């Protein structure tokens, strides 16, 4: 059980890391991109915009927000 937990912990740190909101946001952005392209919209711009917003938001939160 200890090894299973350690294995799970390793993958959580590896993929999700310190800010789960970034990982969740990426999942949403990738899902939306796939959905839009499936419906015929070439949404190449969506991922760069989402990454920019997620990175700025995460860094700013860690740095103490607007105050």
């Amino acid at each position, binding site marked *: 059980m200890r090894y299973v937990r350690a294995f799970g912990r390793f993958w959580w740190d590896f*993929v999700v890391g310190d800010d789960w909101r970034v990982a969740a946001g990426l999942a949403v952005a990738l899902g939306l*991109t796939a959905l839009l392209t499936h419906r015929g919209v070439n949404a190449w711009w969506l991922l760069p915009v989402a990454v920019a917003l997620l990175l700025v938001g995460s*860094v700013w939160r860690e740095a103490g927000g607007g105050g």
Partner: protein
Amino acid sequence: MSSSNVLLFLTTFAASAVEAVEALTIVLAVGVVRGWRSTLVGVGAAALVLAAIVAVLGPALRLIPIGTLRFVVGALLLAFGLQWLRKAILRAGGYKPLRDEGAAFAREREQAGSASPAPTAGMDWYSFTVAFKGVLLEGLEVTFIVVTFGSTQGRLGLAAAAAAAAVVAVVAVGAFVRGPLERVPENTLKFAVGVLLTSFGIFWGGEGAGVDWPGSDLAILAIVGFVGLLSVALTRALRRRRASIRPAAART
């Protein structure tokens, strides 16, 4: 060599160099304090495990359809690359302490010295375990980059060669200076690797999701430029913010 192959080589080389510097610090500290034989056996065992992971996972990933592989690898690289980039930006902006190899070396040395004494004959399991764990843990991230980058671009050999070249270079410099590599600009390397991993993650994640990038493969250069400029701007904004907070705090 195409631009994406050059970027593949540079990314793998820089990421491997950063992790090799950190692993070298641990190995040096244990080897100097407790002796080299068991330490080097631990290093060799970890290197074998890492090579086996590359040898097994690399060909296995080729069995997955390229679109699915790019989508999954792109998603993982994005999550992983953004973590590197986020930490590097916070460090460069002064919101996280920079890694100090000298201090890490002193800490490891002290721990190795305070453990039970090394046996005069046979295997010193403390040295073996610390060296094995250090090299394996630092090497796993590199292995991930080698396997995913190499498989997605069909250049596993090139990615593995870049990682090996970085390890050889770091070990050679470490042997030359006979100490931990304190002057390696680790955060700058991590910053650059974070930009490249995130950019490849965007590119492959998008391709896997069915996107047609304007300019085809050349889009990767534009994405690297976009992520790089954004990261530099964010670092500058953090530094300005920190500088403006300090005088205000000093006045109160």
